[in-house]
């Protein structure tokens, strides 16, 4: 049984070739939580997400998703537990148009958003329905990448820097989408460099340094621990 724990990493190690990137990551996320992974560049945040998804081949330790030990599973099997992954590079397929991109990921669970709900959240996508995937702006690509996994019924979203390089008005729109995601009771693990954005949407923040979790700061303690957090992030 998973006791409401959606993700539990214990002593998770990860390697690119011979070099070890993750040196024993421990973290846990409960159902309905929005949790951010913060840390400097190269701390291993994106690698942690890739390890959770099984995209990082060489990994050791324990990664339990909804109670199931997935450390030896291939990515497609892990995803079928109900994870929606939005990679840092967004991964919009250039040879598919917007609608094809949107409809590509198979349904994983019942209860995904309908196309109308998605278009209500991201009106731009309706206007661009027949555009090629490579014709979109960065903001539209990000909206499409998020919209794509909302349709599948995934109840655990893994988002890698959803606001990176986007104009403030688009960041605000992504924020609204995250509010809607929270209202639906989905669980989210977010990597985010934009700390103001992270502070607004997240319940808790895990701080990563050199491939390990070094601190955990709940929303209620952010104000008090701001100086410490800034030291971690080097701002």
């Amino acid at each position, binding site marked *: 049984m998973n006791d409401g724990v959606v993700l539990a990493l214990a002593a998770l190690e990860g390697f690119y070739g011979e070099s070890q990137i993750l040196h024993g990551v421990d973290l846990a996320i409960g159902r309905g939580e929005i949790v951010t992974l913060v840390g400097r560049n190269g701390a291993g945040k994106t690698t942690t997400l890739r390890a959770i998804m099984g995209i990082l081949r060489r990994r050791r330790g324990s990664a339990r998703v909804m109670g199931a030990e997935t450390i030896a599973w291939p990515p*497609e099997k892990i995803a079928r537990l109900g994870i929606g*992954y939005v990679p840092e590079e967004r991964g919009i397929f250039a*040879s*598919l148009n917007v609608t094809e991109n949107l409809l590509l990921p*198979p349904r994983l669970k019942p209860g995904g958003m309908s196309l109308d709900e998605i278009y209500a959240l991201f009106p731009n996508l309706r206007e661009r329905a027949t555009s090629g995937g490579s014709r979109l702006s960065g903001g539209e690509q990000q909206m499409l990448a998020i919209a794509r996994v909302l349709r*599948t019924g995934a109840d655990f979203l893994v988002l890698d820097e959803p606001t990176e390089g986007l104009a403030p008005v688009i960041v605000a729109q992504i924020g609204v989408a995250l509010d809607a995601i929270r209202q639906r009771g989905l669980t989210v693990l977010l990597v985010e460099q934009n700390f103001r954005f992270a502070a607004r949407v997240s319940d808790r923040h895990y701080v990563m340094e050199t491939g390990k979790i070094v601190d955990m700061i709940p929303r209620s303690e952010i104000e008090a621990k701001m100086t410490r957090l800034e030291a971690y992030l080097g701002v």
Partner: protein
Amino acid sequence: MSLNALFGQLLLGLINGSFYAMLSLGLSIIFGLLGIVNIAQGAFYMLGAFAAWILLHHFGVGYWPALILAPLAVGIIGIVIERTIIRRIYQLDHLYGLLLTLGIFQVMQGLFVYWYGTAGLSYPYPGVLSSGHNIGFMYLPNYRAWVVVASLAICFGTWYAIERTRLGAYLRAATENPTLVRAFGINVPLLVTAAFGGGVALAGLAGVLAAPIYQVNPLMGGNIIITVFAVVVIGGLGSILGSIVTGLSLGLIEGLSKVFYPEASSMVIFAMMIVVLMVKPAGLFGTER
């Protein structure tokens, strides 16, 4: 020159073009998804023709069932080869795939030369298609008309499956970013195996269609695959539409040159390949990678 001869050569060109199109189609699918330049495609074409011949002579199974059974057998053999041999070199450069499949091609061809010699075996026309019609300006053998219609239907069906269906969208997406497609919960390794099986089954099907026209000969794959590679280079490696259009039109061009300047007919396709490589290296329908 008579109009009869002109249309005769055009029909021959269209037939050859149909085979170019079907074979390069399989090559494009396999290259797109696996990154393997599959020289062995020629051997699978030969295997399809032999499967039909073996079915007929050893099991009394005729042309129409063979049209289903032979490609099925070729597809299964292809899947076994993909799983056991080709899978091991995906992470290497394209050149290794080309060399490996060249080896597989030579071994398969060598085995059939050893078993059946190079004289060629004849395969009869299926009964209902053995005659022909005079359609005014030329005599049209029924079987040749059938081959053109069947291969056009196969090409269109394949194009439709890849460009217009959900499975095809998976294939196109996996061609671009297999890792992400897996992270959506799709079993890409299985998809890759299926695409390889489908791609070589297409060659096997072309082999069955070819059996009554050309003789069933262990060298038939080697003879056609060189031309098919030129077709694929001209159309653009990996382009589905490019394979079909280029295959058919180069067959016609080859046929026309046989009418007007026969001496050039064996090199016209390769001359075009050289020009295309110089002007648009990605091919007429290809995109730069």
